Structures are given as structure tokens and as C-alpha cells.
């Protein structure tokens, strides 16, 4: 089957390491020599590192190898070192002599050639024989010692490691240093640390974690076949077949996203042969319906609707790109600047400023005026090689990021790369940056080209199709032909691909800014691009190796935007999460002492809603950029217990239950009350698009959707338009009114997902005008942060119970908070 055209490309797997020192990775041709023993042929450098002899001398002594060859790009060219007279190649016997009158030197062996008297008569000065190996190094003018910078950036290998790996080479000549540290199958993986000796150690820690996560992801997705599906057939605008079907989901199970690849199968019947085809998910509806665009239209049993099966086609692309980025980080000195290299590894680096003329004003055309903390952020970021911007909810981090990118692009350092882990965030940023007048190209994964995007006009594939110049007419003709016939003759296909690639390159190169996901930065279409300036939004939601992908394309100036007080990356494999894969690079840099620049004015929440999050998560620094008046819901008649405080905690005592799948929770009482609150909102004049229902549990989410559509007091359609989502999926988004259903209500068990303060922060900061929380205070108050939240609501007379039309302050007792989280 056709696997697309970028599958053979391996990011970061170039062969720039062939002549790298097998101990430390230094690969400067002037500094390395090859061991010339046929069974060995390994390269080593002439640096001592932390050992008593240089790496090449170490190897020769330990392995008892005695011949070497210089690199073809070294001053002497590819040369086997040997005695000029007798051809002896034992480097331990060789030394230089010079001619008596001329500045000519040759290699001569000590035994026996140096003791031949006749040489003295031949113009050679034998008194000053100068051994090739001196002070346990090769002569430094012959084989250069790597510079201090090169050495610092190399793998820091110890004498013990050298002994071990030399021992290993005796039985397995191709073994690498990584093999020394490979954990056994059942071992816990190494945990992440704060500082790394070098990028090799970094890779040693992260590569196994990424592997664990990839294996888990593969296992989970490939086990998710579903049978007996009912298909609704359609044909897309591009004339391709689209299959619609319902794909139910549960916690911890497969969650489909647009761009995923699925295989649709039909086992055949009397009238139809067995059939299968692969396609990409192009849409997911709120009703859990999946739209799958098939790659090939031939033979589709479009008159059949029942009895289909679907499997997930797992792709290793994103994990491969992370591994590739780590490798590039270690072996390719041009991957990132020296400063960034050492900084990311946690080495102490002398502070460096970026020498750039600062703009006179820090805002950008097409964007709202910046506030003081935003201006401060833009200004400091432009002067530093690495900066962190912390954007608490609603503080305008997209606008700030766009302004930064605008000024970076104007500095003439080449194209700026802008990334985020999620497509949604990339689209938002691309839109804002484009508003400043910069030329933006949004690069999408090939598998997502059919997925609709709010910034379609900025996408590379759209621009390729619509670049309407006459010289491109050939491409357009072929494109049209391909669209109509579904495929091209092989010669036309070749021509089409070449033209397309050329056009893609032309458009990408003429852009000021390239926007893509972090994983997208490893796309082969960017393989020959270099980006000195990189901004990563939502960086606290990416794993470290994911963040590294956009950085290893030549970064000299890096801006990480995010908020480590909100949710981090989702790691499915518990082992990998326990070992620290869930900690973002942003967080580690904070722990290393990089102080994030915090945006301090929030424009989202009613001031009453921002008070608790500001005090609990942001040391009280969050200021309100909106007034109470601007967040007054005029004309909305909703029974808020305190009129100026559009919030309440609605005491619920209903039991939690385990959902049908056995992997999640639901709470019927809370669901019923969610419906009542939604109905009250709708009756008071709020429209469905203003309301969001969020809950930490998938079981409850599905139950609420179902319950409202069956039991809603108003028209069913109204409830269908209301978004019911998990707290996690709502990060980065907002609604006018939020209803939060906590679900957990069991005296004897923990509160699971609710335990994570960052999840509570996200849940509390989604609403603009008002929030209703449903939960059991007796259970929740056991956790200190929830305890102080409940106390906060109680003190403001917003802890209530009873029917909605007659809410009363609750007298429920819970202990005083032990400590306030911060």
C-alpha cells in the first residue's frame, strides 16, 4: 500500500558521525585519526578529556592496536603514518626527523632506522628525533587537539567507561557507549535529572523513555480494532470517498484526532469481495462520529452499510523525530548554538545578551496595544538567547508571542520558526502573526491536508494549489488531472511530484515565518532549512524531546511560552511518566533557575473568578484587565447566590459509580443537576455556544451528553450544541459560562484526577462570566488545595445547596485548611 512519500526519510539520521571520535563524538577532521587495524577502523580524537592520555592513545594502548591513518580533510590528507625509510607503521615507534639544512621533515622509526648511521651523511639530523606520541598525545601540530568549546560540547567520557567499552568491543566491535548503559528489560528506566554532563547522557535518559511511550502507544492503538460498525458513505469536495461512523471512546483508550490513519475493512459477502482501504480522519463530531477520507476510491462497497471493521494504523513518525532530534543535538555541532547547548543541559554558562537594536515601540501592526507586562516580555525576550514567558490564563500570550515574532522577523536573521505541540495553538498563532503583515506559511502534516483549518489560506498545500502564476500552470494541469482521475501515469506522477516539491520550496523560502507543530518541524520538507530564532508556544504541554525537534534546526535564540502551573504533556505509559517524561523543558529550565517572565494582566475572567486562582497559583500577582462591569451578564436572570459574584459551589452528595467500560467514573446526581443548571442558563437567555460543561472523567462526560439529550427540559437540539468536554481538553480555551462536575464522591478512596493542582487551575480559569462547581465538599476537602477553595467559596457565601430556584448557604462541615498550596 502507498505509504506516502516521506516515510523513508529519517530525521536526524544523517551520516555526519562516520569519523566522529568513538569515545567523545568530536568530529573535526583535523582532530581525528582512524585506527588502521582492519577489524577495528574506528575513529578517535586527540583530546584528553578527563583521562590521562588522548582518546586515540587510550584506544591504541587498551586495544593493543598500533597503526593509524589521518583523515582525508586533515592537512596531510588521507595518510597512513609510516616510517619513510622502511614502511614500519607502528606508531609507538615512529617519530619525526628533519633535514639538516631544509625545513623538510619525515617520519622515521626508532628501531631500526634511527640507528642507521648512514643517514647522518645524507643531510638528515638524527639528533632531534621527535616521537609521534608525546606526553600520551599525538603531536599536536600533526593531529590537532579539539578546541575547548569542542571538548565541552563532546561526550564527557571517563577512564572507567573507556575500559568498559574497550572490553565490550573485543566481543562486539560495533557496540556503542549507549550499550553499556542499556537497562535490562524489566528494569525501571533511568529517571530524568536536572543537569546532564553532555547531550549523550541526555539521549541515554530520554531515548528509552520515548521508546517506552512509543511501544505503549503502539500496543494500545493497534489493539483497538472495532467490529460491526455502520457506515454512512459520502463523497468529499475533492471527489474522494468519505466514510462516516461512530467510534465510541473511553478513558485510557484510544482518542482519535484528525490526521490519524485508520484501516476500514469489509470481510465480503455473496455480492461483494472482501475489501479494505486506508484513510485519514478528517473530522470528529461532538456526537463521536468520525469522518474518514479514503485514500483509494476503487472497489469501495458503497452500497453496503453494515458489518465493517476498523483498525488503527500506528505510525512511529513523531517518536522517530524526537529520537532524531536528540541525536542531532548530540552529534551535530551546528544543531544549536554553543550557548543554547550548554544552557539546555544545565551547565553554568556566562550570561549572554543578544546584540540587536531594539525597536522603538514593542507592539506590532494589526495587534492590540500591549500592556506593561507584555511590553516588558517582548523587550527582554529580544535581548536574550533563551527566555521563558509564563502566560497565566487569559493574559494574552498569543498576542505577546505574535509581537515577539514580528520583531524577530524584522531583525533580518533569517526566517523565524514558530511551533506549538497542538495544531489548534499553531493555527491561532499563525493567524495572529499573519495579522501583523508578515508572510506566514503554515506547514501541515500531509495526513492533515484534508482537515479543515481556520487558517487554510496560510497553509503550504493551499498556497501550492493557488499560487496562480503561468509558470505553475503545468503543476495545475497535473493537479487537476490527478483530482479527476484519482491517479497519474508514472511519468506524470514523477513530474507532478518534482514540480510540487519545487513550488513548496519556493513558497516556504519566501516566507518570513514558518508555523508548524513541534513534531511538524521534523518534516522532510524543512530538512534543508535553518532557523536561528525559534518560538514555541504551549511549550509546557510538550515533552522535552518534542520541544527539541524545532530547536535542532540551528537555534541561537529560543523563546519558550507556556504556563507550568497548568497541565503538562499527556504521557500514556506510566513507567515513562514516573521516570519524568511528563516534565517539560520549560519546567526544568525553571528548576535550573531561569526566571520566567510572567504576563500579569488577565482579560478573561470576572474579577471574582480570578481571585482564587491568582492567590493560589500565581502568588497573587494576577491583575484584572477587565472590570466587574465588563463581565456583568446584563439581561441574564440566573440565581447567583451573591449577585456581584457569578460563582457558586453546589454541594452534591450523590454517589460516584464506575462507568460501563470499567475504566472511568460517573455521577448520576451531578449529571442531573448539570442538566438543570444548563436549562436554567438557556431559559435566562444564554445561548448554547456560551456554555461549556467540563469534567475530569470521560465516563461522566459521555453520561452527561447522553442524559441531556434524553432528559433535557428544552429542545434536544439546544443540548446538542453545548460542548461537554474533559477538563484537559479545555486547556487553552474559554467559555462565558462553565459548569464543572467533579464526580468523585467516595469517602474511602482518593480523588484521582482532581488531586493535580494544575488540573484544578485549568478548570477554574476557563469561564469569562460565571462558574458553577458541582462536587462533594466532604470528599474534596481532604486535599489541601480543594479545602482552601471550599473555604474561599464558603467565606464568600457561595457554598450552597438545595433546589436551584431556592439556593441556601450550605452548613456542611469540613476541616480547616492545613496549608495553602502555592
Amino acid at each position, binding site marked *: 500500500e502507498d505509504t506516502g512519500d516521506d516515510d523513508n526519510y529519517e530525521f536526524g539520521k544523517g551520516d555526519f558521525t562516520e569519523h566522529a571520535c568513538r569515545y567523545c563524538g568530536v568530529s*573535526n577532521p*583535523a582532530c581525528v585519526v582512524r585506527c588502521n587495524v582492519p577489524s577495528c577502523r574506528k575513529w578517535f580524537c586527540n583530546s584528553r*578529556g*578527563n*583521562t*590521562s*592520555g588522548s582518546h586515540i592513545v*587510550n584506544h591504541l*594502548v*587498551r586495544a*593493543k592496536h*598500533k597503526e593509524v591513518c589521518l583523515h582525508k580533510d586533515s*592537512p*596531510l590528507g588521507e*595518510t597512513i603514518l*609510516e616510517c*619513510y*625509510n622502511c614502511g*614500519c607503521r607502528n606508531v*609507538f*615507534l615512529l617519530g*619525526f*626527523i*628533519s*633535514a*639538516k*639544512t*631544509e*625545513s*623538510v*621533515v*619525515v*617520519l622515521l622509526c626508532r*628501531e*631500526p*632506522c634511527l640507528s*642507521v648511521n*648512514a*643517514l647522518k651523511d*645524507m*643531510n*638528515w639530523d638524527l639528533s*632531534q628525533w*621527535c616521537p609521534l606520541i608525546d606526553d*600520551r598525545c599525538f603531536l599536536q*601540530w600533526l593531529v*590537532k*587537539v579539539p*578546541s575547548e*568549546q569542542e571538548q*565541552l560540547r563532546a561526550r564527557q567520557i571517563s*577512564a572507567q567507561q573507556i575500559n568498559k567499552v574497550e572490553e565490550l568491543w573485543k566481543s562486539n566491535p560495533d557496540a556503542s557507549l549507549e550499550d553499556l548503559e542499556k537497562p535490562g528489560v524489566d528494569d525501571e528506566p533511568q529517571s530524568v535529572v536536572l543537569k546532564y554532563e553532555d547531550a549523550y547522557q541526555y539521549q541515554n535518559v530520554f531515548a528509552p523513555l520515548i521508546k517506552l511511550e512509543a511501544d505503549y502507544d503502539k500496543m494500545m492503538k493497534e489493539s483497538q480494532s472495532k467490529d460491526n460498525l455502520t457506515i454512512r458513505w459520502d463523497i468529499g469536495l475533492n471527489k474522494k470517498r468519505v466514510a462516516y461512523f461512530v467510534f465510541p471512546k473511553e478513558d485510557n483508550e484510544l482518542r482519535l484526532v484528525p490526521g490519524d490513519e485508520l484501516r476500514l475493512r469489509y470481510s465480503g459477502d455473496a455480492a461483494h469481495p472482501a475489501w479494505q482501504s486506508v484513510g485519514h480522519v478528517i473530522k470528529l463530531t461532538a456526537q463521536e462520529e468520525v469522518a474518514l477520507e479514503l485514500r483509494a476510491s476503487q472497489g469501495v462497497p458503497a452500497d453496503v452499510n453494515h458489518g465493517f471493521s476498523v483498525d488503527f494504523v500506528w505510525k512511529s513518525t513523531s517518536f522517530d523525530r524526537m529520537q532524531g532530534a536528540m541525536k542531532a543535538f548530540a552529534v551535530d555541532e551546528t544543531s544549536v*548554538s*554553543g550557548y543554547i547547548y*550548554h544552557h539546555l543541559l544545565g*551547565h*553554568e*554558562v*556566562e550570561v*549572554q545578551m543578544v546584540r540587536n537594536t531594539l525597536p522603538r515601540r514593542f507592539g506590532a501592526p494589526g495587534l492590540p496595544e500591549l500592556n506593561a507586562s507584555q511590553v516588558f516580555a517582548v523587550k527582554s525576550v529580544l535581548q536574550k538567547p533563551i527566555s521563558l514567558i509564563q502566560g497565566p490564563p487569559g493574559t494574552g500570550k498569543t498576542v505577546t508571542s505574535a509581537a515577539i515574532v514580528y520583531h524577530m522577523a524584522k531583525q533580518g536573521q533569517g526566517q523565524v520558526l514558530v511551533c506549538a505541540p497542538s495544531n489548534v495553538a499553531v493555527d491561532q498563532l499563525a493567524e495572529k502573526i499573519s495579522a501583523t503583515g508578515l508572510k506566514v506559511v503554515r506547514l501541515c502534516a500531509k495526513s492533515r491536508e484534508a482537515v479543515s483549518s481556520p487558517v487554510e489560506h496560510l497553509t503550504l498545500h493551499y498556497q501550492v494549489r493557488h499560487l496562480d502564476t503561468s509558470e505553475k500552470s503545468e503543476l495545475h494541469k497535473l493537479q487537476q488531472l490527478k483530482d479527476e482521475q484519482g491517479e497519474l501515469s508514472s511519468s506524470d506522477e514523477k513530474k507532478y511530484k518534482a514540480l510540487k516539491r519545487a513550488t513548496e520550496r519556493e513558497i516556504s523560502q519566501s516566507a518570513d515565518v514558518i508555523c508548524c507543530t513541534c513534531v511538524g518541524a521534523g518534516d522532510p520538507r524543512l530538512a534543508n532549512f535553518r532557523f536561528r530564532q525559534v518560538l514555541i508556544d504551549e511549550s509546557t504541554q510538550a515533552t522535552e524531546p518534542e520541544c527539541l525537534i524545532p530547536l535542532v534546526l540551528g537555534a541561537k535564540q529560543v523563546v519558550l511560552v507556556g504556563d507550568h502551573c497548568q497541565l503538562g504533556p499527556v504521557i500514556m505509559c506510566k513507567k515513562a511518566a514516573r521516570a519524568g517524561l511528563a516534565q517539560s523543558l520549560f519546567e526544568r529550565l525553571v528548576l535550573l533557575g531561569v526566571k520566567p517572565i510572567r504576563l500579569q494582566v488577565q482579560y478573561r475572567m470576572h474579577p471574582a473568578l480570578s481571585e482564587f486562582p491568582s492567590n493560589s497559583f500565581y502568588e497573587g500577582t494576577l491583575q484584572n484587565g477587565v472590570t466587574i462591569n465588563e463581565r456583568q451578564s446584563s439581561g441574564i436572570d440566573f440565581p447567583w447566590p451573591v449577585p456581584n459574584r457569578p460563582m457558586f459551589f453546589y454541594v452534591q452528595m450523590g454517589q460516584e459509580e464506575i462507568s460501563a467500560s470499567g475504566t472511568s467514573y460517573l455521577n448520576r446526581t451531578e449529571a442531573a443537576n448539570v442538566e438543570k443548571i444548563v436549562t436554567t442558563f438557556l431559559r435566562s437567555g444564554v445561548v448554547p455556544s456560551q456554555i461549556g460543561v467540563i469534567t475530569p472523567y470521560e465516563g461522566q462526560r459521555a453520561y452527561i451528553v447522553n442524559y441531556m439529550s434524553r432528559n433535557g427540559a428544552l429542545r434536544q437540539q439546544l443540548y446538542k450544541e453545548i460542548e461537554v468536554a474533559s477538563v484537559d481538553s479545555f486547556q487553552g480555551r474559554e467559555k462565558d459560562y462553565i459548569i464543572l462536575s467533579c464526580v468523585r464522591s467516595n469517602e474511602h478512596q482518593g480523588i484521582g484526577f482532581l488531586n493535580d493542582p494544575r488540573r484544578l487551575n485549568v478548570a477554574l480559569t476557563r469561564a469569562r462570566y460565571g462558574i458553577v462547581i458541582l462536587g462533594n465538599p466532604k470528599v474534596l476537602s481532604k486535599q489541601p488545595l480543594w479545602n482552601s477553595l471550599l473555604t474561599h467559596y464558603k467565606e464568600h457565601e457561595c457554598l450552597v445547596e438545595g433546589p436551584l430556584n431556592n439556593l441556601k448557604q450550605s452548613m456542611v462541615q469540613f476541616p480547616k485548611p492545613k496549608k495553602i498550596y502555592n
Partner: protein
Amino acid sequence: DDEVHVRQKVAEVDPQEEADFELDLKAVMQESMEQRRQELRGRPTLNMMIPMNVFEGSIKDHHGRVGGDSGDEGDEESGGSKEVQVKVLVKRGNKQQTKQMYIPRDCSLIQSTKQKEAAELEE
């Protein structure tokens, strides 16, 4: 312009490790010498003529060997110290070849040639 100043502890070489290594290195040297002595009993034939073209080429710039910063970009640590240009004579198969290289002026290898040169200049 990618200059970076990393403050890092200077790793100390373990004296025991250093002593052990020195011993191993000496052993390899010793072994090599003995091996050679056993291999070659007779006197080696001499094959050490300096090809004439080497002399010819060098006559013109005989006094111009100051070298140093003469376009040697790769070398960062040369600093101010002067270097001397030499020709390294190698054999490729049976063909002789010379390659230019720079040697630190204080290298013992060229002390005698330098003295000679100085003597010549005085004359």
C-alpha cells in the same frame, strides 16, 4: 560568533589511573621495540633520498619561513605564538610527496635547522 563561556569544574585526572596508564603505555612501547628487534636482524636498506624538487621549491622562500597566522583558520589556540612552515615528506606507494604544515617554533625538531639558519644569516 558562537562564543560561549561555560563554567565547569575541571575534572581532575585520578593519579592512580594516570600511573596505570603510563605503565600500560610503556609496556606497549617496550613490546613494540622488542618485536622489531626480533623481526629485523639485518641492517635495513636505505631509501631516504630527499627528492630534488623539494629543495628546488624551497629555495625561493628559504628565508620566508615565519608562518604563524598565514591563513591557518582552523587553529584557534595559536594565539600570538609564531609557527614555522615545514614540508612533510611522505611516500604514496613509490611516489614521494610533500605537504606543507606548521610547526610551533619552539619544537625541538627544528631547533637545529633554525640555528643553522641563524648562522647562515650572520655570515
